[in-house]
């Protein structure tokens, strides 16, 4: 009468894969892959989340309307991250020809401390931004 009944062996199989992926993500964290450590961690996390959504949360067997709502979630997340990072990642790219600081201003976060450690004084890309104006 109600929703699709998923055989329990599917649940046990998904559980096994999720556990293996957890061990995998811990293992990979101890190997130096440079910038790809984050990529690997997020890829595994997205894979695990997808399995949970499709099988434990039955979206694979749900109506098209439910699938659409679930997918809309990714769209809204993309807007949130996309629009925010177009701002944060592009700060300091442009300096106005007339020397105004209206555009191309590097915004530092938090109050400026008098003696800031050199290693982390400014975000990445701050040096170019400062040089531009």
């Amino acid at each position, binding site marked *: 009468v109600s929703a699709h009944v998923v055989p329990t062996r599917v649940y046990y199989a998904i559980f096994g894969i999720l556990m293996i992926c957890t061990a995998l993500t*811990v293992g990979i964290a101890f190997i130096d892959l440079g910038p790809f450590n984050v990529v690997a961690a997020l890829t595994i996390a997205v894979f695990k989340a997808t399995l949970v959504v499709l099988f*434990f*949360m039955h979206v694979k067997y749900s109506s098209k309307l*439910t699938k659409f709502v679930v997918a809309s979630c990714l769209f809204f*997340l993309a807007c*949130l991250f996309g629009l925010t990072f177009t701002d944060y990642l592009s700060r300091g790219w442009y300096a106005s020809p007339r020397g105004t600081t209206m555009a191309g201003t590097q915004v530092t976060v938090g109050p400026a401390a008098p003696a800031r450690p050199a290693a*982390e004084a400014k975000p990445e890309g701050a040096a170019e931004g400062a040089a531009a104006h």
Partner: protein
Amino acid sequence: VADVAHHPALAHQFDSLGQQTEAATLGMWVFLVTEVLFFGGLFLTYAVYRSFYPAAFSAASHELDILLGGINTAVLITSSLTMALAVHAAQLGQRRLLMIFLVVTMVLGTVFLGIKAVEYYHKFAEHHVPGATFQFEREHQRHAQIFFSLYFIMTGLHAIHMIIGIAVLLVMWIWAWRGRITSDYAGPIEISGLYWHFVDIVWIFLFPLLYLIGRHA
């Protein structure tokens, strides 16, 4: 539509129990989308600050207990399995099995919260709670506080969701005990399961992002 064998759990605005469950599932998903964006704002904040201060985030992340975090991840994934099995039992009308799986799920959720409490205690003892008494290696003193602020807000909000989830499952257990849940009316268990799995998914992202940064260094 004629009321052919009107089920006591069927609300008058629905044609059938199937339609009622479908509407409830959809409504729950709409709520979960807002939840994703609620947590999404925090993940975004995390992403921005981590891109600003990668070294401080790496150093602060090293202070978290990878063993306790890993055990908690396994505990939560296991609880998701028992939750899925509870839904399965509810759909087949296996009342006893449903009640057992609900209890196991609640126990695993409580174990998670207990381990989390131990971790929080360590952080207080080590002065890693942001504020006037915060202590960290001088080089990262300021920016490590941002990491730990996010750590406490994100894991704290997650823990609140866990507590609510356990409370919801407790209500479901009482409903099952009273015989309100049948194979015709397993919807409430399915909806509660959606919430529980969502909380699991949040942790699936929190664990690598908080505990596993720069471990190779």
